[in-house]
């Protein structure tokens, strides 16, 4: 909202600099978004002068030497001037030595190219009345010589564009802010003088103009008043009013419309003036529109209404969308002589709903939406009547017609100064507190002190009707602090009692996986959560994609929650490549949303991609990444979540869909157990379709947050043997299709049985996989290394050999595997 300093000055003495004003508004809690200056600033030693002679400067082609008459007191001055747009006889502003022009430009007597100059003739820009100008400001009205320039120029004003927070609708007007500023600067607030008593009746009611007011929809319009004013003469409003309206961005229209706007900007109460002769049937009905009812609003647009919208209608047609905008058919024009002035209280919810629905808002609807004070309505109405009588020549006809009731307002808050200080954590003297409250018209009506302890003082604070936002003691703490000044909050140390709590396991998980992947030289990425439907269908089933859709996406390609992190990473890879930046190893942590049985689950996820070879060209090639590189990464990431992937069933992806390449990627876990992992080669076709060249490996782990228990406690130490190990190698020829883990498990079982309890099979791992020459087709050889050890002694060759032989015998009996000799 724009507020004018000159306007504010009508109510409170505000002879302060712009900076002081801005600071006050800011620390009262209203953000100053813009400071605009209009008109001329106060200038001393700048007067009206007339150019008597103009001669070319002897030493400079573009300069002139002029004699300038500045009136009887000032005499004639010699002034060097560079402008070209004036002639002898023109009257212009003359800045004399001692004048300080905007921008802190001080005028002194000086020599310009050897010629003495006694001052400066000024342009509009130099005087600060225009953003830019070309040449001197020629004063066409030929004011008297020597007149101080401020008497000639439009008076200067400072206009602040201020953000009013939604809790303070009372400050959507000049009086409201003047009240705040009066408290800040500790100056009295002067209200406009009201002469018209709205409660008293005027003379000679005019039922021919307004027979009746009916409010049908009284739940949305608890109070409606209408006043008939006759004999109005439409014309321009007074210059000062026009100037004020213009300064805050309103275009003056005529005296009646301007007065309505002026009072709204003064009191915050929207008003509406009807041309009485346009009110069909001399009747005003406040009702809901019918579905499909139409009205052409003042902006020339036809609006189609519905039965939830409130209108002001006459006997035949809607004339105003209540509280929002008048219709073309009922407004005041040059021919208007009799008015009906409406001042009403509409419920904010109703106005807001209609305004949103129609996409139509106005200064009026803005105020109603935020809440106007029904108890100030009468005063605003009276003020408008006063102005109409004074500046539009009207006469009040009959009593104010009022439908609905004044809701009685009374609110008191019991406030103890000790409570204020306790909440603030520092002491404000009670007297200062009380002065602050008083200045905001939060009047302390009673003081009680039940005991001798001054901390027991309790005030009864009376809350004015326009401060509906205040209803608890804590609300008054803020009021006291605002006026006291938040800049005066004392400096203090942070006091920290220790609490027995630890970071969320989710946080610890994210930190650990990030540490690991950064250590593995991955670059962390951050991608948007919202993705396109098309992308999602590449990665999850149709049903899952549908479940992840937003009801109200903002743009089409951000319509669904992400189910995986991989596509975002591929996008980042592509972006880097398209910009000629080598990128190979990317990762992200973040939330993904996984569907299971018609339910979505929000999961933590960590995902990464790595290209087979690095993008970066290098003089020496390194080993390429492959399935097993990403498997190890995933094992480690899973271990951070407490999952031992080596103990989990892992199966190869069998069909190339949902992003992964069949036979080259694998998965483990499922949402039933609260986690799932996928890793391996990304679908070659999918990657190619994205415009990415080469093979890309990836891995992702998604886990329900509640799966992370964050178990602390310490692991028990496991003693280990200090005796030497005995090693034996064993190669088994098996069907090529059998997963290695199956063979390993069978071998481990037999080997454990074979060594029994005498010593232990400490380790068993595959060290060679072979296919080809020497083996039948469809077979492979898996070579295992077996590690035996005892915790009590050094094993002898004999006992190890015996066990090893038994293992081989048992294998031959119990499995189809052949021992490769």
């Amino acid at each position, binding site marked *: 909202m724009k507020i004018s300093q000159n306007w504010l000055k009508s109510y409170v003495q505000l002879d302060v600099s712009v900076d002081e004003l801005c600071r006050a508004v800011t620390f009262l809690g209203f953000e100053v978004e813009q400071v605009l200056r209009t008109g001329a600033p106060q200038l001393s030693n700048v007067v009206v002068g007339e150019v008597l002679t103009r001669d070319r400067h002897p030493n400079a082609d573009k300069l002139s030497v002029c004699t300038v008459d500045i009136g009887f007191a000032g005499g004639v001055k010699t002034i060097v001037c560079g402008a070209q747009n004036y002639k002898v006889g023109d009257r212009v502003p003359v800045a004399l030595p001692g004048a300080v022009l905007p921008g802190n430009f001080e005028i002194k007597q000086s020599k310009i190219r050897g010629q003495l100059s006694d001052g400066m003739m000024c342009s509009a820009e130099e005087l600060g009345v225009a953003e830019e100008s070309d040449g001197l400001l020629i004063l066409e009205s030929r004011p008297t010589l020597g007149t101080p320039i401020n008497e000639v120029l439009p008076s200067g004003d400072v206009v602040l564009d201020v953000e009013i927070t939604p809790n303070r609708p009372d400050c959507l007007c000049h009086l409201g802010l003047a009240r705040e500023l009066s408290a800040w600067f500790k100056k009295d607030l002067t209200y406009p003088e009201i002469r018209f008593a709205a409660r008293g009746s005027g003379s000679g009611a005019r039922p021919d103009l307004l027979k009746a007011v009916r409010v049908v929809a009284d739940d949305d319009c608890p109070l409606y008043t209408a006043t008939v004013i006759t004999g109005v003469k439409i014309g321009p409003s007074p210059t000062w009013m026009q100037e004020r309206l213009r300064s805050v961005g309103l275009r003056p229209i005529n005296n009646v419309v301007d007065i309505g706007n002026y009072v709204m900007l003064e009191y915050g109460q929207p008003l509406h003036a009807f041309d009485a002769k346009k009110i069909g049937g001399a009747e005003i009905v406040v009702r809901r529109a019918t579905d499909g009812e139409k009205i052409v609003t003042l902006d020339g647009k036809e609006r189609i209404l519905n039965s939830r919208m409130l209108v002001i209608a006459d006997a035949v047609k809607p004339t105003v969308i209540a509280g929002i905008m008048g219709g073309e058919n009922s407004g005041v024009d040059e021919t208007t002589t009799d008015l009906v002035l409406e001042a009403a209280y509409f419920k904010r919810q109703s106005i807001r709903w209609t305004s949103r629905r129609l996409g139509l808002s106005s200064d009026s609807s803005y105020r109603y939406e935020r809440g106007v004070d029904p108890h100030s309505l009468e005063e605003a109405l009276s003020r408008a009547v006063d102005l109409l009588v004074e500046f539009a020549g009207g006469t009040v006809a009959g009593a104010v017609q009022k439908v609905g009731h004044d809701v009685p307002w009374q609110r008191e808050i019991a406030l103890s100064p000790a409570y204020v200080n306790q909440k603030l954590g520092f002491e404000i003297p009670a007297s200062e507190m009380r002065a602050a409250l008083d200045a905001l018209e939060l009047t302390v009506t009673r003081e009680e002190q039940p005991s001798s302890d001054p901390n027991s003082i309790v005030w009864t604070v009376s809350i004015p009707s326009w401060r509906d936002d205040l209803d608890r003691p804590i609300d008054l703490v803020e009021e006291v602090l605002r006026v006291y000044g938040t800049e005066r909050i004392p400096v203090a140390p942070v006091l920290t009692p220790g609490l027995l709590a630890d970071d969320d396991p989710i946080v610890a998980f994210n930190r650990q996986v990030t540490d690991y992947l950064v250590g593995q030289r991955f670059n962390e990425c951050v991608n948007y959560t919202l993705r396109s439907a098309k992308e999602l269908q590449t990665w999850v089933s149709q049903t899952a994609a549908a479940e992840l859709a937003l009801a109200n996406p903002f743009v089409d390609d951000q319509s669904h929650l992400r189910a995986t992190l991989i596509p975002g990473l591929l996008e980042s890879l592509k972006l880097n490549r398209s910009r000629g930046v080598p990128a190979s190893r990317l990762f992200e942590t973040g939330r993904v949303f996984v569907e299971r049985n018609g339910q979505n689950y929000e999961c933590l996820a960590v995902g990464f991609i790595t290209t087979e070879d690095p993008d970066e060209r290098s003089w020496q090639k390194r080993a390429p990444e492959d399935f097993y590189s990403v498997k190890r990464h995933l094992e480690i990431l899973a271990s951070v979540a407490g999952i031992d992937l080596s103990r989990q069933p892992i199966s190869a992806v069998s069909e190339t869909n949902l992003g992964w390449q069949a036979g080259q990627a694998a998965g483990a876990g499922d949402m039933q157990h609260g986690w799932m992992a996928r890793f391996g080669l990304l679908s070659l076709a999918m990657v190619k379709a994205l415009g990415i060249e080469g093979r890309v490996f990836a891995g992702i782990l998604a886990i329900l947050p*509640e799966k992370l228990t964050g178990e602390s406690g310490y692991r028990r130490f496991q003693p280990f043997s200090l005796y030497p190990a005995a090693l034996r190698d064993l190669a088994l020829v098996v069907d090529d299709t059998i997963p290695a883990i199956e063979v390993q498990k069978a071998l481990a079982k037999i080997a454990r049985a074979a060594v029994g309890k005498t010593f232990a099979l400490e380790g068993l791992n595959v060290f060679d996989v072979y296919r080809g020459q020497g083996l039948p087709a469809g077979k492979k050889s898996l070579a295992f290394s077996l590690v035996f050890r005892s915790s009590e002694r050094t094993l002898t060759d004999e006992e190890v050999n015996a066990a090893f032989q038994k293992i081989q015998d048992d294998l031959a009996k119990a499995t189809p595997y052949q021992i490769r000799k």
Partner: protein
Amino acid sequence: MQDLLSALLSKAQQELPQLNTRPEFEAAKARYVGPNGELTALMKQMGSVPKEQRPVLGKAINEIKVQLQSLLDGSLSRIDSLELEKQLGPAIDPTLPSPDPFPGTRHPLTLVREEMCRILTRVGFTVVEGPEVETEYYCFDALNTPADHPARDAQDTFYFRDSAHFGNVLKKTAEEKYLLRTHTSSVQIRTMLSRQPPIRIVSPGRVYRRDTTDATHSANFHQLECLYVDKNVTVRDLKALLDYIFASLLGKDTKTRFRPHYFGYTEPSFEVDLSAKHLAKVNKEWIEIGGCGMVDPTVFDGVGYDSKIWSGYAFGMGLERLAMLLYGIDDIRYFYQNDLRFLRQFA
């Protein structure tokens, strides 16, 4: 005999320094000094030598032995070094760059988040997380947001269809809608509902606004909020925390100031400005950095804390905004493009 010994020695002198491999050496050693070696054979002939010659000859044999041993040692050490030499790869050019990948990097948002968490952890805060999909209760109702508040509008907040179900985000009431949280304050509610005070938490996380993406707006961005609940928490304590945070982040000469403001869940409420010498690309003295206030008693009542006993403060800020200020980044979209030339600058 003497001649034989001399011949043996000169043969060894010739042969042993020429040996290149360990097997050759072992074979030669056996030939000279092994049980069937030549020297051994000569020593065995000692018995056939006249008694008086024996001492002289014995001495000569010992000398030969010593010399042979030293020849053998020399040969062995030569072979040792030859073997080590073989382990050496090709010569290096120390000025060539390593072909290994560049270091990994943390995203600047992670860096800023972790730095803030570290600062807050030092004064007793612990880090908590909550779901990004929320319900109206946690995101709005519990935070004292009126039913007709504009923030709840479908124009500003992403909602899910009534049919949507989130298995691990439970609704408070059956009618309420699922939405994407518009602030991390919902985590404060969840924490207060699940724990008893005193509470001192910081909740960083991703939030969503239905907004056009441009240089300063993004459909999702990140916030970080602090909540402290205890007895007798004051406005002064809140100011002390903010002073501490930004002095830790930007140096001891950093100042903060409060401007009164309005938020539904705090009373009184403030916007926080900071002023610091070290900020790049800033030509204003005061920069708005976040919002804060004393937790509104209504919020406490809603989560079942007795507002007569408990008091508290909350502070929240945008992480992108903070990162932009700290690093002098002028466009929020850089955070979501992941250009490595961007990512590598901060890690």
